[in-house]
């Protein structure tokens, strides 16, 4: 699967997750979580080989337009409507080391806040040239980038008048299944971030700020697209100093 030959695979167990930093399962301001949250405590497990291993996807799964949402669903010669942006960043682990060769998947609404999904009934129009999904694999330095249009805010049936801030969903693989993560990226300066019950499931303001991508003027391309930077941190793993072979062999 992975074709990198100059890096030794890491096999240490992952750092314990700080579940006070993540949102709790039960967060009643986000109504659907009320019946979808376990009530019993989680059973703790220091990762076994079943969790410290995970699928790794080669670049061969990617097509040329997979990281270009402006064009990957558009008719030839056409493009999606909206504010053209580039989203880029690095995937690092908690030790600050780049995580190369990991798959990221993105999905989002169009410029008007409308998702291309049969369960979605919002009256904002579908963009015939916008699908809303993309993916990329990080390079040797953990970098990824994609082009898209900035998604619009959209209303949802939670409170009487709740609206999601503009956001892009991210799914991230690491090198171990225990690193699996899904999150959402928000945009610098959006006043709706601080009104959102889903953002509000995260108890710590600093943790929320970790999900807000700053405008990256340096990487903005004149007369083309503005850039936003979004770095992602996955769980670190223990150093292999005293753990350089799997136990149980």
């Amino acid at each position, binding site marked *: 699967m992975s074709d990198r030959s100059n890096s030794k695979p890491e096999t240490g167990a*992952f750092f314990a997750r700080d579940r006070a930093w993540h949102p709790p399962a039960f967060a009643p301001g986000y109504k659907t979580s009320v019946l979808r949250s376990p009530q019993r405590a989680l059973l703790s497990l220091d990762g076994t080989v079943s969790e410290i291993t*995970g699928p790794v*996807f080669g670049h061969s*799964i990617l*097509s040329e337009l997979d990281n270009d949402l402006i064009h990957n669903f558009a008719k030839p010669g056409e493009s999606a409507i909206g504010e053209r942006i580039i989203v880029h960043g690095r995937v690092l682990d908690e030790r600050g080391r780049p995580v190369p060769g990991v798959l990221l998947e993105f999905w989002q609404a169009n410029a008007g806040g409308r998702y291309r999904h049969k369960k979605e009934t919002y009256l904002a129009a579908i963009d015939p040239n916008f699908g809303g999904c993309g993916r990329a694999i990080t390079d040797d330095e953990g970098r990824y980038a994609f082009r898209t249009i900035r998604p619009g805010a959209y209303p949802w049936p939670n409170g009487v008048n709740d609206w999601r801030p503009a956001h892009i969903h991210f799914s991230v693989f690491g090198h*171990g299944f225990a690193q699996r*993560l899904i999150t959402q990226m928000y945009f610098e300066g959006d006043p709706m971030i601080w009104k959102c019950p889903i953002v509000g499931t995260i108890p710590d303001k600093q943790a929320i700020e*970790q999900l807000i991508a700053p405008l990256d003027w340096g990487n903005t391309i004149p007369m083309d697209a503005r850039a936003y930077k979004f770095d992602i941190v996955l769980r670190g793993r223990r150093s292999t100093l005293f753990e350089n072979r*799997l136990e149980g062999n």
Partner: protein
Amino acid sequence: MVQELGYLKETPSQTAGPYVHIGLTPNHSEIGGVYETDLGSVMVNDKTLGERITVSGRIFDGAGGLVKDAVLEIWQADSAGLYNSPSELRGSADPNFTGWGRCPTNSTDGTFRFETIKPGRVPFKDGRKMAPHITIWIVARGINIGLHTRLYFPEETAANAEDPLLQRIEHRDRVATLIASKEGSIYTFDVHLQGDKETVFFDI
């Protein structure tokens, strides 16, 4: 002052939301032409070694309602107990088996279904063998951080009895929530997110 440890904080999780299928299974959600196939929809081919099985089930919320908008991913060893991962140092896994699958719950009847093989046994950290199992990860609207659980096999009575993880479940009546039921080659594994029949979930 002491030196700083210098660790970064993990990016916090957020719900996958109701439209997770756009990103993870676009062909399934009628967004055709972007990817050739949905990742994880096929785990085996004609040459895959091992006993072919089907894993199917449903997810229920705390009121007994069906969760019809979830996505499940499974991760498992091959028939010899090896993972198809660069982090697997014990040997080379079956190249005809991905070990990883992804399936949404059906928007009408709430079922999920994986065509896979029965995994071999893999070691726990202290060298004892774990019973054959499949690791499952569940995301959905209303789930703020993905839920990890495991499927075990009902015919593996002896292996299950000595499984180091199952042994750690304090309330013994809950062990049954991790054991699928079997009919022919079809294993049924229902997940209960909350309540009396609540499935055991792990912090791994």
